[in-house]
């Protein structure tokens, strides 16, 4: 699009005069509103991510509090701190909080804060979406904890195994609180994945091609893809179990042809990658801190990228190692055992690269580095016990004992908490503009480090002796009471340490010594941002030529603060980002993003009411809430485009770029691609569930159900040709400027979808009957329903696009929305055909 990128940092004559005006304008355009309203409506990435981080730490404290009670209970055999039921509730809530409300979101928060700054962008490409994610996370967490108020706290473990969690064995509402609350909060994780992938692919600073991306950004990119593939299985499992609990479907119920192990498969299909979803961002933090404190570029940059990508893939092949004791054939276990050992290789590569960097550099032992050393020690121990656990016979020996509790905390706390605190102290001067107190922060570290090891090291022993996990007490005869007392006491030391750290950090924001900018003399772009951090990050979008621009060309800092570079001028008072090529990092487009708005919080709140209605079985309320919800989302979508946006803008003297609606790599397009990846993973998990149930069912289709006759099945499929045609010819018409025809094609697609639903669902009903009869009917209806929802959404998008063309938002040049509608239809038809084949062809053959 552009010729060889010209150098825009040279001021044109007279420009310096306008600098003040331009800065003031940037300030105004990017500012959050004043007061509380401003806070509630803010969408800027710095603001939103700060909230995510604070909320994450709040949940850490709550989850930690629960663990203190558990530790008290375990301090001595036969104590009565928590009765068995409470203990089960606390284990469940502690595990759930730590995994879903602390570990994943807080890393998302770090990414949200750092990624745009590291890649030289002004904001994330979908600010409203990030804000929406935050509210979902907050409301989801509160929803889960409201179970304490209603006296039905989930108590079946953070893994919610069926049949323990089904309505027979968990009759109350506890499990529903878990399923709904956690799924609600997970929207945030999924949203952050979309956000990060799009940001990293298309909004990197000019010149930051793939081999110059900071390692934290690489780590987050891989993590985001892992979330996109890994969370859907869990979301699906939660939905299936909730449907079973609420509407009496039969996925996991043996008596009606279901299989409880299906839950475990879906759960661990998410659950193992989850460990790496937590670890990879932490590894990214380690890479950043290590190279800064070794004061030299990372040794083996390529190897680390390789390790990140390889871990991302390999970790999906390990899930069954959590199921070694459920009676799966040995050969299958061995595949997973082998893969589990294999994944140690990329992790080892990273560790060697870090050590080599420290070795080759002149390490500087400040607080962030202390945590890195803590990380090395603790994480390596956790890794070693992990390798032990990957051996099937040893696993059988210590399964469900405190040995596993020790391993898990060594990995999680070593692999997540230590790097997290390293990162916290490392980037604190950036976020606060001040320095934390060295003595307090050192004490915090030692309290945590010593407390942690004394608390969890003994558990290896208690576990091997046979102290069971998830059980509220143990026998005196086991002879582990002194060790447990030690664990409990040390647990409190650690808790004091964590609280001290958080106080230290909070104090730093008010009392800290005003720091110099870039106190660690780091080399990456986030440190070019002035302090206090302006909401737009960079006055001009930086251009870079190396991996550590601040080391290799300190000029960059000054250039980003002048307003005569890229996008220094805010056009039309709109917030603008610069879009660049995916691999090359060449300027490609101007991306206009939203300003503060009520939409995200309103949408999340509406969902919260909808879910409250659902859990209290006030279904009318839930259905009623769909109206404002759809309204809000339509309004949201409607306000994305800009009818008056010029098709091209001047980004810097002599450089004109298209705005996103007319650009090929528009963020909306990538949002769609990533969303479809996520959705595709959800769909694949559902198809997996179908085949898994089939594999374990004696008869298929179930007694009483028949396979639909050929004729109605084929007739039902036929109307799907219409949307396919429309998806192909609609955009062609639009590109040729024939707006009427383009609108007509949208209508044709909508009609095709409606006819499909009208024909398929009744015919299916006649053949299969009610979904409650049998797991077969349950899964058939879920597949059909899944597809039906897609058709409905596609129809909505089609109608919307038709309106947009009519109102002049979409035309022959600004084609983005028509491309999105067409792609969504193609996808919907695609999964429709697969669904159709699974429902109508497979049973004839099976």
């Amino acid at each position, binding site marked *: 699009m552009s010729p060889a990128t010209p150098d825009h940092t040279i001021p044109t004559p007279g420009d310096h005069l306008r600098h003040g005006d331009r800065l003031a304008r940037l300030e105004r355009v990017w500012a959050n509103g004043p007061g509380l309203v401003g806070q509630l409506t803010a969408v800027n990435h710095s603001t939103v991510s700060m909230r995510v981080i604070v909320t994450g730490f709040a949940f850490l404290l709550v989850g930690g509090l629960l663990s203190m009670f558990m530790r008290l209970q375990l301090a001595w055999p036969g104590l009565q701190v928590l009765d068995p039921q409470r203990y089960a509730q606390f284990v469940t809530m502690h595990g759930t909080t730590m995994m879903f409300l602390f570990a994943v979101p807080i890393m998302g928060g770090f990414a949200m804060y750092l990624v745009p700054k590291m890649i030289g962008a002004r904001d994330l490409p979908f600010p409203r979406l990030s804000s929406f994610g935050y509210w979902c996370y907050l409301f989801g967490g509160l929803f889960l904890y409201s179970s304490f108020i209603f006296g039905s706290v989930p108590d079946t473990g953070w893994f919610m195994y069926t049949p323990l969690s089904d309505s027979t064995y968990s009759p109350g509402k506890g499990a529903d609180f878990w399923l709904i609350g956690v799924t609600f909060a997970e929207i945030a994780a999924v949203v952050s994945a979309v956000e990060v992938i799009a940001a990293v692919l298309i909004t990197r600073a000019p010149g930051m091609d*793939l081999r110059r991306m900071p390692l934290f950004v690489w780590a987050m990119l891989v993590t985001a893809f892992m979330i996109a593939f890994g969370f859907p299985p869990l979301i699906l499992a939660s939905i299936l179990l909730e449907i079973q609990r609420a509407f009496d479907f039969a996925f996991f119920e043996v008596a009606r042809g279901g299989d409880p192990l299906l839950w475990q498969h879906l759960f661990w299909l998410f659950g193992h990658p989850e460990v790496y979803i937590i670890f990879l961002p932490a590894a990214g933090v380690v890479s950043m801190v290590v190279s800064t404190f070794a004061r030299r570029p990372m040794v083996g940059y390529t190897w680390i*990228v*390789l390790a990140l990508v*390889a871990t991302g*893939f390999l970790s999906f092949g390990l899930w069954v190692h959590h199921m070694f004791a459920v009676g799966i*054939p040995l*050969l299958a276990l061995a595949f997973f055992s082998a893969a589990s050992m294999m994944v140690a290789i990329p992790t080892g590569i990273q560790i060697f690269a870090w050590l080599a960097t420290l070795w080759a550099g002149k390490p500087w032992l400040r607080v962030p580095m202390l945590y890195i050393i803590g990380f090395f020690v603790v994480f390596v121990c956790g890794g070693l016990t992990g390798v032990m656990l990957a051996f099937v016979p040893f696993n059988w020996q210590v399964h469900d004992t405190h040995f596993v509790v020790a391993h898990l905390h060594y990995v999680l706390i070593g692999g997540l908490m230590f790097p997290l605190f390293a990162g916290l102290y490392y980037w604190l001067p950036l976020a606060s503009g001040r320095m934390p107190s060295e003595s307090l922060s050192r004490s915090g570290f030692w309290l945590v480090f010593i407390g942690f090891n004394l608390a969890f090291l003994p558990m290896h022993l208690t576990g091997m002796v046979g102290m069971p996990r998830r059980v509220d007490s143990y026998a005196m005869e086991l002879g582990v009471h002194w060790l447990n007392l030690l664990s409990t006491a040390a647990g409190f030391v650690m808790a004091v340490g964590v609280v001290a750290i958080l106080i230290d950090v909070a104090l730093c924001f008010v009392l800290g010594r005003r720091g110099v900018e870039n106190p660690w003399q780091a080399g990456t772009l986030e440190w070019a941002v002035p302090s206090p951090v302006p909401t737009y990050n960079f006055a001009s979008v930086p251009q870079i030529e190396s991996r550590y621009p601040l080391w290799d060309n300190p000029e960059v800092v000054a250039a980003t603060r002048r307003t005569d570079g890229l996008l220094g001028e805010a056009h039309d008072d709109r917030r603008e980002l610069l879009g660049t090529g995916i691999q*090359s990092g060449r300027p490609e487009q101007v991306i206009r993003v939203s300003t503060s708005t009520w939409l995200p919080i309103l949408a999340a709140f509406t969902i919260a009411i909808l879910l409250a209605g659902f859990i209290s079985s006030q279904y009318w309320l839930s259905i009623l809430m769909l109206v404002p919800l759809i309204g809000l989302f339509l309004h949201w979508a409607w306000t994305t485009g800009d009818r008056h946006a010029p098709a091209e803008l001047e980004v810097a003297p002599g450089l004109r770029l298209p705005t996103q609606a007319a650009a090929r790599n528009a963020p909306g397009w990538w949002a769609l691609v990533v969303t479809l990846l996520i959705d595709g993973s959800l769909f694949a998990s559902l198809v997996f569930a179908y085949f898994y149930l089939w*594999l374990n069912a004696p008869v298929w289709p179930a007694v009483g159900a028949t396979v639909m006759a050929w004729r109605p099945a084929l007739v039902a499929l036929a109307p799907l040709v219409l949307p396919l045609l429309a998806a192909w010819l609609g955009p062609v018409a639009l590109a040729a400027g024939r707006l009427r025809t383009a609108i007509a094609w949208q209508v044709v697609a909508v009609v095709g979808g409606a006819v499909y639903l009208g024909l398929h669902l009744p015919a299916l009903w006649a053949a299969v009957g009610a979904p409650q009869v049998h797991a077969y009917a349950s899964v058939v209806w879920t597949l059909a329903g899944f597809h039906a929802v897609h058709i409905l959404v596609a129809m909505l998008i089609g109608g919307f696009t038709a309106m947009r063309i009519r109102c002049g938002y979409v035309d022959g040049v600004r084609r983005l929305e028509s491309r999105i509608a067409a792609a969504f239809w193609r996808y919907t038809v695609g999964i429709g055909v697969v669904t159709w084949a699974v429902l109508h062809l497979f049973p004839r053959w099976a």
Partner: protein
Amino acid sequence: MSRLRGMTLTRMCAPYALWALHFLAIYSLQGLACARQLGRERVAGLEIMTWTMWGLTAVILAAIAWQAWRAGQIRRALLASDDAGRADHARRLFMVVLCLLGAAISALGVVFTASPLAMLQTCA
């Protein structure tokens, strides 16, 4: 030149995708063999299913090798071309190296995953 362009993110990830495919396939096949008695007859001393899984492993390894070979070709072309020093050039080389290393790791992964086949019966 077109050959140089061929180095994409997708290609970079292809070896791992092949590893994943292999993993998924042998895990599913094993399930089918045990739950549905698929391919349990013995031929030349091994169950048909074991042969199938070995065959699949060989095919996947060949595919990974092919990916690596392609990447090697691109690398050679890059090294021979005279725009060394340009940003594009360095970036492509970076991706080629990643692809080659990825192929090595994936091949190792496939071998690792398949190795139990040599030691265990299909449904022990």
